[in-house]
């Protein structure tokens, strides 16, 4: 009879924050990738290690963004009813995933705009 009341509480905020953090990180990752290849100042900023080159800065900053967004979303959703957010966060995650894969395609990555002087 009391089994229903003794069910363990599910920390849904953790699952929601993890999904949200993955989506935010992927979005920031392709933007950073694009900035690093296009802007020389960014390129110099992201060379954290001379041996590994710019990749070291990209991976490190993506990891920091993941951890920070996970922590912030955990604080935001803590002790809140987030059941109505499930579907929205899922679609945000899927669209972030799609945009990430499109924006890291070699064809788009080597895309350049040439401005011709008239």
């Amino acid at each position, binding site marked *: 009879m009391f089994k229903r009341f003794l069910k363990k509480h*599910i*920390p*849904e905020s*953790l*699952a929601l*924050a*993890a*999904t949200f*953090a*993955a989506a935010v*990180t*992927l979005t920031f*990752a*392709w933007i950073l*990738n694009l900035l690093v*290849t296009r802007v020389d100042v960014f*390129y110099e900023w992201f*060379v954290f290690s*001379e041996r*590994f*080159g*710019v*990749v*070291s800065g*990209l*991976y490190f900053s*993506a990891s920091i963004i*993941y951890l920070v967004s*996970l922590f912030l979303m955990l604080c935001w959703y803590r002790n809140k009813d987030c*059941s109505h957010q*499930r*579907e929205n*966060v*899922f679609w945000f*995650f*899927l669209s972030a*995933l799609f945009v*990430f*894969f499109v924006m*890291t*395609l*070699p064809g788009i*990555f*080597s895309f350049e705009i040439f401005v011709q002087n008239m």
Partner: protein
Amino acid sequence: MFSFLDLLSLIDPGLILFGLVMILFGAVLPLVFLLKICPKIYRILLILLCLIEFLFIGILWIDLAGVQGTFYLQGAVAELSASLSTHRFLIVQAPLFLLPSSILILLAYKDRIQENHAKWYRVTLIAMILVSFVSTLSIACESLI
């Protein structure tokens, strides 16, 4: 004649780890689809996902340690190979961040992931693992060129 040590020196550690990742993905893929029917397998899934994540970090470390010079400035590499290797180093970020998220979802829901209200998380979990597998496959294919 080749000695056993000569044979061992031919083996690439990155390649062995990559093979292990593919084998583990082969085990994870059917299990994630079986979560709805048999939620008790979430423990095995958790262990396998943690193993894959650690192996990925190992592969990345070995791969990066093998790169000579600054990555984007490899002028001697052919154009196609260079663009594909750049692509490889970019899409490896997807499994690196999707796998910890799937681990966290499983840790939150445990065996209650089969319940109706967890439908969106189940779908998210499947999407995360499928995308990680596809990106691993594409990394393998691009490494051949």
